[in-house]
């Protein structure tokens, strides 16, 4: 389970990139269809996550993320590796 503080940091980045208020973003939201993020913005998102949490993410992993839950899952796995 991802710590609430980490989730908050992820939501903050999502809000910065999409201009969608935090309370309107749900874990099940799809990055492209629901949050309107094109492929370039999705890459920016994953890059900002890598910087925020100082974790290395491969392109294949980045491109495979489709929804907010996917971000949580990746972050949880990476942070537990540290």
């Amino acid at each position: 389970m991802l710590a609430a503080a980490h989730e908050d940091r992820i939501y903050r980045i999502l809000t910065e990139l999409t201009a969608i208020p935090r309370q309107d973003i749900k874990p099940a939201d799809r990055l492209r269809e629901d949050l309107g993020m094109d492929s370039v913005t999705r890459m920016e998102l994953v890059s900002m996550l890598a910087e925020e949490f100082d974790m290395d993410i491969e392109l294949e992993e980045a491109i495979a993320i489709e929804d907010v839950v996917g971000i949580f899952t990746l972050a949880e796995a990476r942070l537990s590796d540290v």
Partner: protein
Amino acid sequence: MAGEAPAVEVLLLGAGGFLGLHTLDALRDRGIDPRCGRRRRSNVLGLRSRKARLVPADLDEPGGLVEAMSGCSVVVHAAGHYPKTSRDPQAALALGLRQSRAVLDAAAAAGVRRLVYVSTTSTVAPAPGGGPSDERHTWPEPPAFGAYHALKWHMERAFLDEDRLEVTVACPAACLGPGDLRVGTSALLVATSRGMDPPHPDGWVPVVDARDVGRAVATLATMSAPPRRVLLAGGNHRLQDLLTLAAARYRVPPPAPPVDAATAIQLADAAEAAVEGTAQRPSLSREIVDLVVHGLPLCCALAESRLGLSWTPLSTTLDDFDAWARRLGIVPPHPETAPCSPPPTRTASTGSSPS
């Protein structure tokens, strides 16, 4: 061959982009580990995986640019403004010129000796009397047929007019190869691979492997007495030929005949209008249409003679892009796909070129 100067401290702007990453690799091949400029919202995944030296460098924050350039003798600028659409030419021009001046002013203030600016072959004019164009052929005034061409003309002119430091300009043609995450020039090839058969005009499309561009830019950064401006294209093709090749590679029906230029412009303008105010990108962008409709065959003998550059064959470029794009799911998996012979190449190395 190019004469190599001693190792230098280099700042690479746009390091995380398609050309930036290949330039980083090429500089490292020469023993130079550059500082890699980054904006907060830039994609640095490729830079992190390469353990690059990241420094903050935002073209909209001049003070930070000077700091990023401090102690550097060379700056490579591969972060020139590339507007998402051609809908607001004045705004694009204002931003592009403001950022260009910020880079130049910061370089001058930081005591940078040389700046390598990565421009585009869209600044190349037709050769009088026909035949391939080369470094001598420039528009005396900004082209009037497209916002992208005009923007790039103004930006390149700003760099060429600089007299406080040495400036050399690289003009890459349509860039192909692995690492094209924005799928810029490759967009029509990717669409074709998916069997989408996008409407398209026909025209000359000089192409170049992005890794060749990286090598050329690294050479310009390090050689003694670089040329003022150099064109980079490994071959001249018709777009219809390229799309036909892509269709054959991916075992999809050949592309429909091209639409005429006016129709293509109408389609692109409509596609750009449809995504205005959204985060989406147009299905057919106006600058791509302009680039194809007004594309020119190029002679790149100067890059060969002065930079010692040899061009990666198109078949190799496409094979390597294909392998990379399949890994990321950008093009569909298709185990039966096999490399095909490249389309007819109208040689890029014929004709005379300035020394």
